[in-house]
């Protein structure tokens, strides 16, 4: 173990975990109010990133307007998905909704390849690339990549904003009520369908933010969608219904992944690419020992 590298990898992992937390947030928002786990979240993220990229690079628009367009597209996409794909499945077994979002992910993948191409595209530089160096503390120096720092900050601000939104606004309260019980919410006059639509739009916007941030770090291609699979363990770890859980889970998965990638001294162990599957091993462990996650609701179900 390279313990003197620990601070560096810990901080890098924490920053990467910020993006996972953002994706996890989108998943939790949808799950909380609609009880649907969105396997297509990564693909919405990828499409959002691509839309922003297209308007910045191909249409030559300034950053803020491209981001604005991407957000509008995300809202429309969220509404469309809810109305056309998932509303007809209300009342269907869980298998149907899982397959629907999986099919949706395939469909969006195809659309993205058709419209934007399968090649990796470089994003224009959103953040200066010069790294930030902390320290030295003793003989330890921590190098921070600025895009990562910014994406972490934006992710955290987003997460905090949504936590406050759910806590203190009327719309947030309505959404929490819907999450509690669809029929009950309907019977006290909440427009459950509209809330579902709003939920999907919000989640799509969150995903788009993630897509733009990730795109600015590593470029964008249709396979960017796969990053969302690393957020699944984060969501399960934190608990499916919990926004703080999404943050904790996202950061944990980021840190664990980064430490596993960087700490082993033996080159052979590092070359095995253990980091690639660490999130999924974490997921299996969570499923085996604490399926409700850290902050999830405990549904008592005795068989």
């Amino acid at each position, binding site marked *: 173990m390279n313990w003197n590298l620990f601070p560096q990898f810990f901080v890098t992992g924490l920053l990467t975990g910020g993006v996972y937390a953002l994706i996890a947030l989108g998943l939790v928002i949808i799950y909380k109010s609609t009880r649907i*786990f969105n396997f297509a979240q990564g693909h919405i993220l990828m499409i959002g990133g691509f839309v922003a990229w297209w308007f910045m690079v191909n249409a030559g628009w300034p950053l803020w307007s491209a981001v604005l367009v991407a957000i509008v597209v995300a809202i429309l996409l969220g509404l469309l998905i809810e109305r056309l*794909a998932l509303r*007809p*499945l209300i009342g*269907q077994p*869980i*298998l*149907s909704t*899982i*397959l*629907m979002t*999986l*099919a*949706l*992910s*395939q*469909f*969006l*993948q*195809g*659309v993205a*390849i*058709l419209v934007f*191409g*399968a090649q990796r595209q470089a994003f224009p530089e959103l953040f200066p690339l010069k790294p930030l160096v902390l320290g030295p503390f003793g003989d330890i120096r921590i190098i921070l990549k600025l895009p990562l720092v910014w994406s972490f900050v934006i992710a955290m601000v987003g997460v905090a904003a949504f936590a406050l939104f759910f806590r203190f606004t009327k719309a947030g309260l309505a959404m929490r009520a819907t999450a509690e019980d669809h029929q009950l919410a309907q019977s006290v006059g909440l427009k459950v369908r509209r809330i579902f639509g709003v939920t999907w739009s919000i989640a799509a916007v969150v995903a788009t933010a993630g897509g733009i941030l990730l795109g600015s770090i590593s470029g964008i291609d249709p396979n960017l969608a796969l990053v969302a*699979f690393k957020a*699944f363990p984060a969501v*399960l770890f934190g608990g499916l219904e919990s926004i703080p859980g999404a943050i904790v889970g996202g950061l944990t998965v980021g840190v664990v992944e980064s430490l596993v990638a960087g700490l082993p001294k033996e080159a052979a162990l590092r*070359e*095995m*690419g253990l980091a*690639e*599957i660490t999130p*999924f*091993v974490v*997921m*299996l462990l969570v*499923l*085996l020992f604490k*399926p409700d996650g850290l902050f999830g609701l405990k549904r008592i179900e005795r*068989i």
Partner: protein
Amino acid sequence: MAAIRPSGDFDITYERDVAVLRQPWHWGVAIAFVIFLFTLPLFASGYLLGILNMIGITLIAVQGLSILTGYTGQISLGQAAFMAVGAYASTVLVTRWGVPFWLALPCAGLVAGVVGLVFGLPSLRIKGFYLAMATLAAQFIIPWFFRNVAKGLFGGTTGLVVPPPRLGSLVFDSGRMMYVVIMAVACLTTIVSKNIARTRLGRAFLSIRDSDLAAEVLGINIFTYKLRAFFISALYAGLAGSLWAHYARAIRPDQFDLTSSVWYLGMVIVGGMGSTLGPIFGTVFIRLLRELVIVISPWIGTLVPALEANVLAALGPMLFGLVIMLFLIFEPRGLAHRWEIFKAAWRLRPFAY
């Protein structure tokens, strides 16, 4: 099962009531179909046989998945990964230990079945969506294992070259020869599936799908039955993987990706859950759809030149996703249900009801 029966054709003995093929002419049709299936390579073109081979291999994996997802109601996103286990197990057995293919094939099935059991273990505590997550983890961990662990044995990212099966002086090195093997295994697994569905095992699976609580009350040990479903499903995947390895003659970890697993689930849905006929309908339908994409893509490319470069890669997932979505909304019970409706209508003809 599949046989259509005219009005007024009743089962007059108990044996006939439980039989799959109830009338002499059902037997005639079935035997004629089998003869047709196995004499096809004598006159069919190589292109057609290639498609049929892929349909056969996929059908085996999808029949397995149908037992797990269609009958038992447990969602698995890892069928392609279990295929990988079968493919690698069979290849290593044949190339390293000189085991003949005919022995390596069932062994590959067993190895995949045991791996399936391991990933089925979480079903003790979790179900539905959570179980889907556990199998998703399998789908990521297993190909990673073949890519990064024991590169000398599994060949890393480049994978392995697989020798063709041999029987005496016969070498099964062409699609035409492999067709016979693949179809034989596909027929066998389909018959086994059908019979699982007709026995206590299948009824227990169905009861677990419909209500696990009620099943438990009826005295079905849910955990062991779920594990059996996982084992059978992964065993089928292992057989399919082994056949695929010896048919394609080269395997790489990235051939067994999540997308394939999702496609297999889609085939189960399109075909119809909880029937043996469903996977056949679903596999044939989706595979033919894929062939259609390959045929019409260049044509679309010439119509809209701007899309030419991407249309082939894009159209497959787009159409597939769209078909699954439409089926989920408009015909969640799949093509097999349509077939049932047709059979019922035929049975009532010429009376309206």
